């Protein structure tokens, strides 16, 4: 380490540290605030750390909101959609990568256009379609439309293009049919993509707001995000409830991230598109 390099190192590390503090602060402030009793939340001068740490806000949130119900709704939708998304995207990406038919090329272009026409842009006609299909106000109405994702299809297509064709041919010569080749051979090879897309899909669905907003009207079928929005949307925001409820809503994602972080952090697979 020369003196010049050391200076560089100190300077760069300092910039990262400052930015890191700025990026971390909002989360930290939410977390600290959620442990303060209501009386302390608005008392000036503000204190950084709570005077007395209380879990009362969490008990209050759990008692006031039917959290268990919302969490179960959201989990059902998230898990079902994720499993179906991975299966559909894997088989579709595989077909686009390994078969050479004209109509597949056309369909690939169709999938490309979906990135230009997000649900948010065509809310009203989408709502009509949901009603006509009898999906209105049911959890299936959240699951089924979300299965088709361009990102997932692109990720698998990109991956399967790198798998040598000889492998398929060998399996075909051995007399395996296309279905067996896909399920027995190709899907296991694609495990890293399966995991990466599962994490992405989980995050998309857990945090989704637009679909539940359109599809669900019965409060018993609310997802966590819609329930949160109903607290923020109130004329008088109950901050004590909102802060702790927000923290609770983040926990599942933190758990998933902690378990699978290496798949997210060390992957080029995220170079697809956003959902």
């Amino acid at each position, binding site marked *: 380490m020369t003196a010049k390099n050391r200076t560089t190192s100190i300077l760069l*590390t300092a910039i990262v540290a400052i930015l*890191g503090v700025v990026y971390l602060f909002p989360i930290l402030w939410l977390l600290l605030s959620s442990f303060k009793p209501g009386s302390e939340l608005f008392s000036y001068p503000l204190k950084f750390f709570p005077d007395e740490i209380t879990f009362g806000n969490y008990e209050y949130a759990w008692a006031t909101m039917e959290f268990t119900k919302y969490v179960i709704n959201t989990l059902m939708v998230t898990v079902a959609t994720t499993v179906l998304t991975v299966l559909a995207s894997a088989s579709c990406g595989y077909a686009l990568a390994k078969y050479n038919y004209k109509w*597949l090329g056309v369909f690939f272009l169709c999938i490309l256009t*979906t990135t230009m026409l997000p649900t948010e842009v065509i*809310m009203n006609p989408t709502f009509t379609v949901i009603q006509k299909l009898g999906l209105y106000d049911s959890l299936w109405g959240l699951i089924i439309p979300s299965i088709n994702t361009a990102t997932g299809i692109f990720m698998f297509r990109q991956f399967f293009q790198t798998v040598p064709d000889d492998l398929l041919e060998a399996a075909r010569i051995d007399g395996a049919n296309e279905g067996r080749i896909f399920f027995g051979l190709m899907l296991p090879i694609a495990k890293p993509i399966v995991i990466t897309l599962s994490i992405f899909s989980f995050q998309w669905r857990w945090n989704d707001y637009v679909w539940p907003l359109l599809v669900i009207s019965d409060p018993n079928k609310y997802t966590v995000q819609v329930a*949160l*929005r109903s607290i*923020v*949307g109130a004329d008088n925001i109950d901050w004590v409830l909102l802060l702790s409820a927000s923290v609770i809503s983040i926990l599942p994602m933190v758990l998933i991230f902690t378990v699978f972080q290496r798949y997210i952090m060390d992957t080029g697979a995220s170079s697809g598109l956003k959902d």
Partner: protein
Amino acid sequence: MTTRRKDKNQKWALAFVIVNMVLFGLFFAWPGVLGVYYSFTDYTGISANFIGLENYVKLFQDQSFYKALGRTFLYTVLSVPLLYVFSLLISVLLVNKYTKGKSVAKIIFFFPWLISPIVAGVIFRWMFGESFGFINYALGLIGVDPVSWSSDGNMALMVVLFATIWGGTAFNMLVMMSALMNIPKSYYEAADIDGANGWQKFMNITLPSLKPTTFMVILLSVIHSMKEFAMVQSLTNGGPGTDNTFLVQYIYQTGFDQRNIGYASAVSMVLFVILLIFALINMKVEERSKI
């Protein structure tokens, strides 16, 4: 034999994509066509009468539409470059061999990705509260008067920008970091021998190598900010007043709250055309830059 084989494979290929095809038809093609049709009618949820271009004529004379469109553009023009610069700065720092504590920093910058737009809105609303927020309190400590983060339209837009950059960095960072790691080390070594300094290396090697990634990130960010909805709904609800009502919220209000579905669909079509034009421009510029 081979032809029969091919037919059989074709059936399999169809089986593999059929689910996505049906869903594409139901949830993209059908609403898309329906939206075009609605935009030429006075549909309010009961019956639809064809009224030709009336919605579009009304639209282009509508002040609140222009306001929403202008505000959405302003937000996009501000947020996309800022988000790009911050994401790039952080990515470059995190792949630099002289930076310490990279793995911890990476997790910190990535964390906002886990957080939903609704909760992100909640967090920033809480931090920037005028009378109770931490930011105004901290400003007070250094002798600055409290800023009207929620009652002043432009200040409220600033908060939306902060939240956007905070939440959007993670995804861009992932994409950019993998692109940065793929730049051959030999380029930099050659530049070192020529005596290039850090800035010259960044401008002549790093940025040009990142071009494809840059195009992708910019396109995605633009689409994302043009359809921004959930976070703003929980952060400012488009306020103060209608100062920060963006296009998608405007579509939501006119289509669902006021039931002017025909009119809202016309706004949707305008937004779709804008996104399409931008995507085409992006593609053209990208093609040109390859030559």
